[in-house]
């Protein structure tokens, strides 16, 4: 029997960006909130020895311990799903701040087109443009409705940037000016301008200058230290939940964080949830935390896993297309790239910041005509300078040996002499891409792992090829001696890192038959349960997800306050 604790107003499951934002907004309004986080405490002082590529980037110091919990994966239903035994495709967050601690900070808004993707596609190209197995749907919210929440997240984080000429309207400019421009970025800018494209500085959570946010939190400027993606920031310059929203929630006196608390079930009676059951992983004790409102912010995989294990919501059935939990799992198509080798130019590419770069959106969303193309949407194209560290960056021109004398000579020669122009392709939902509980593999507590059924489709192959060609064209203008570019996307492969941009599974929408949550991320089936994160995305855009996660978290917080006041569905 689990030990039962006194009831609180709100319990939050997982304290990353989503959980942290909800905590700060609700505690400011006087609600008593408990945040349950399975991992440990984190603080800026932890990062004294952070410039250690082996420990953080290759041994995954800050990420989820896979020996305790992982996911299983199969390309399609004919194959047996097997566990992701080692890291590859994506890296899961763990501990206070979640992935927000070791993210890059590239902070993009999605396009107005994204939120109405089904209607806009039909309107411009007709119904036949959408393949029969594609599960495209509108988000049940429009860009203009979400815009104020984007603005709030960007001000919270202090995003450094400049207006993107091809994006939705902004109510205000970015709170801090763009980051510095490296010589390589200037080359990209010059070439893309000559090509009549529309380059702009990547919106960055790394902070171009010191900044005080509306909550009164002050942070120092980024030092371009080159240890950002996969690392914590030793300056507190990178916006992360630990240096922004969590201290704000703590200061109210209304927030209690319990680390080492692994939530295993959401408890439900009738059509309401009553709290959660979690295991204190330091003692092994099972504990029940009752609450009036439950907020699920444990990232895509555990958001779905916890709902399915707790029998909350109707599981998605790919055979009938009915049910909603696990539906529309999507990812990111990230391999459409080109790499250029320069024989007589050297760059400071060892320096950089997680969100330093220049971007063009001319081939993103519906910013270009798809009439004669076999895909919809597209992706951003960028030259980024995130800091090239020596273990993970040893490229040599294609076809050359990958070990031995010639390899060493080439990898040493080109260490500071190559540049990549890369795309970040969108990922459309398909009827047979979904998440459910694995029938055989278990976590350290005996609970089933989540199972991914996902592969790249013709849509993805065509889009990646198209984007790789565009990357190559841009790179050509920059004058390298040799270019290698992606030829074929190939199947989805869990072993190579692509991005931690997993989306879908508890998607938002206007219709309870085809979506799991309303546009305040409140469950249609359960009024007092909110499910927040990229799990709400009906598809993934050609951008990184977190600006949209942050915006939706602000909106969800507003929905929770509304629910507290008036009850029922808040839409």
């Amino acid at each position: 029997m689990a030990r039962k604790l006194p009831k609180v107003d709100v319990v939050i499951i997982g304290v990353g960006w989503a959980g942290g934002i909800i905590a700060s907004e609700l505690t400011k309004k006087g609600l008593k909130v408990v945040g349950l986080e399975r991992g440990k405490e984190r603080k800026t002082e932890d990062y004294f020895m952070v410039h250690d590529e082996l420990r953080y980037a290759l041994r995954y110091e800050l990420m989820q311990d896979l020996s305790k919990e992982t996911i299983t994966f199969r390309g399609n239903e004919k194959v047996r799903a097997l566990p992701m035994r080692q890291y590859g495709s994506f890296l899961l967050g763990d501990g206070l701040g979640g992935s927000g601690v070791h993210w890059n900070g590239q902070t993009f808004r999605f396009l107005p087109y994204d939120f109405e993707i089904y209607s806009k596609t039909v309107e411009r190209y007709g119904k036949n443009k959408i393949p029969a197995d594609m599960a495209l749907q509108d988000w049940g919210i429009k860009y203009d409705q979400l815009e104020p929440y984007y603005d709030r997240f960007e001000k919270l984080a202090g995003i450094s940037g400049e207006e993107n000429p091809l994006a939705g309207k902004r109510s205000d400019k970015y709170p801090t000016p763009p980051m510095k421009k490296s010589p390589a970025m200037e080359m990209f800018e010059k070439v893309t301008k000559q090509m009549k494209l529309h380059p702009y500085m990547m919106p960055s959570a790394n902070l171009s200058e010191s900044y005080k946010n509306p909550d009164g939190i002050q942070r120092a400027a980024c030092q371009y230290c080159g240890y950002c993606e996969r690392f914590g920031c030793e300056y507190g310059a990178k916006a992360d939940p630990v240096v922004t929203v969590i201290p704000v929630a703590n200061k109210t006196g209304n927030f209690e964080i319990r680390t080492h608390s692994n939530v295993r079930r959401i408890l439900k009676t009738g059509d309401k949830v009553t709290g959660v059951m979690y295991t204190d992983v330091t003692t092994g004790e099972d504990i029940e935390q009752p609450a009036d409102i439950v907020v699920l912010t444990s990232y895509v995989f555990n958001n779905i896993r916890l709902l399915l294990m707790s029998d909350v919501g109707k599981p998605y059935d790919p055979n009938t297309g009915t049910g909603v939990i696990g539906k529309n799992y999507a990812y990111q198509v990230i391999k459409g790239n080109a790499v250029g080798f320069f024989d007589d130019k050297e760059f400071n590419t060892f320096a950089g910041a997680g969100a330093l770069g220049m971007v063009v959106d001319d081939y993103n969303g519906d910013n270009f005509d798809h009439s004669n193309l076999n895909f919809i949407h597209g992706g951003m194209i960028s030259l980024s300078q995130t800091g090239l560290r020596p273990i993970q960056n040893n490229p040599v021109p294609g076809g050359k040996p990958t070990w031995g004398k010639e390899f060493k000579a080439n990898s040493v020669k080109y260490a500071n002499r190559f540049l990549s122009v890369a795309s970040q392709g969108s990922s459309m939902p398909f009827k047979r891409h979904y998440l459910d509980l694995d029938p055989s593999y278990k976590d350290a507590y005996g609970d089933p792992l989540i199972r991914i059924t996902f592969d790249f489709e013709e849509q993805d192959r065509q889009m990646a090829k198209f984007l790789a060609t565009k990357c190559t064209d841009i790179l050509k203008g920059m004058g390298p001696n040799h270019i290698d570019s992606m030829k074929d996307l190939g199947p989805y492969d869990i072993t190579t890192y692509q991005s931690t941009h997993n989306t879908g599974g508890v998607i938002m929408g206007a219709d309870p038959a085809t979506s799991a949550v309303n546009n305040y991320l409140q469950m249609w089936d359960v009024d007092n349960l909110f499910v927040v994160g990229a799990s709400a995305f009906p598809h993934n855009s050609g951008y990184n997800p977190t600006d949209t996660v942050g915006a939706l978290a602000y909106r969800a917080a507003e929905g929770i306050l509304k629910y507290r006041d008036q009850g029922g569905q808040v839409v």
Partner: protein
Amino acid sequence: MAEQNKENPESLSRRKFIQNAGFTVGGLAVGGIIGSLIPKEKKTETKVSQQKSEDFNQALMYFTPEQYQVVDAATERIFPEDDHGPGAKALGVAFFIDHQLSGNWGFNAREYMQAPFFRGEKVQGYQGRLNRRDIFDIGIREMQNHSQAVYKKDFTELSGDEQDAVLKDFEADKVDITTISPNGFFQMLRSVTLEGAYSDPLYGGNKNMDGWKMKNYPGSQMAYADIIDKDFKVVKPQSLKSHMTH
């Protein structure tokens, strides 16, 4: 904050860490690792650097001497000494690998190793039940067996070209082994060689930061804010140790 930023970011960070942690000189008793965060007097520093100390790190934690020698020879073929600078041998790569195998990495401690085990598709990744220690034990033994089968000699007695041929057979899965994937072992050996050449010297490889020096990689610097918008410039490398002594 804004004012502090105008200072040399390096000193800012050092002091900030100490302040944040609440260790003030003359206040709390300082000791252990924390004590060394406090800036030392110049005198002591020169004294320390003048003493030429032995490298006590170069001893074995896991390998047998034979295993060590095979790995030392093989990694040198993967990453050989040349005009640019030292190869795996001089960088201490085999010691690095030995030390890595002795800990978490060797036991796959933070990886999912639960049954059932099935052979999967390539895109599903490693599905074996063996940990890296097992794989190295088997891989090294099979390198010796293959050398004996083809050349009637131990791997370490082969010429460089012969050693390359053995490694190529592993890379191309041309060695008949049932317990491990020859290519999988080769790829692991290759990537851990690069780790040994380029990780912070604190792990026992990249001796003298010579791996970094070859690549003009500056190692661990506090800040590049002054050079990020400038053309390439060589920055004198620094390892994590320097954070302890400043």
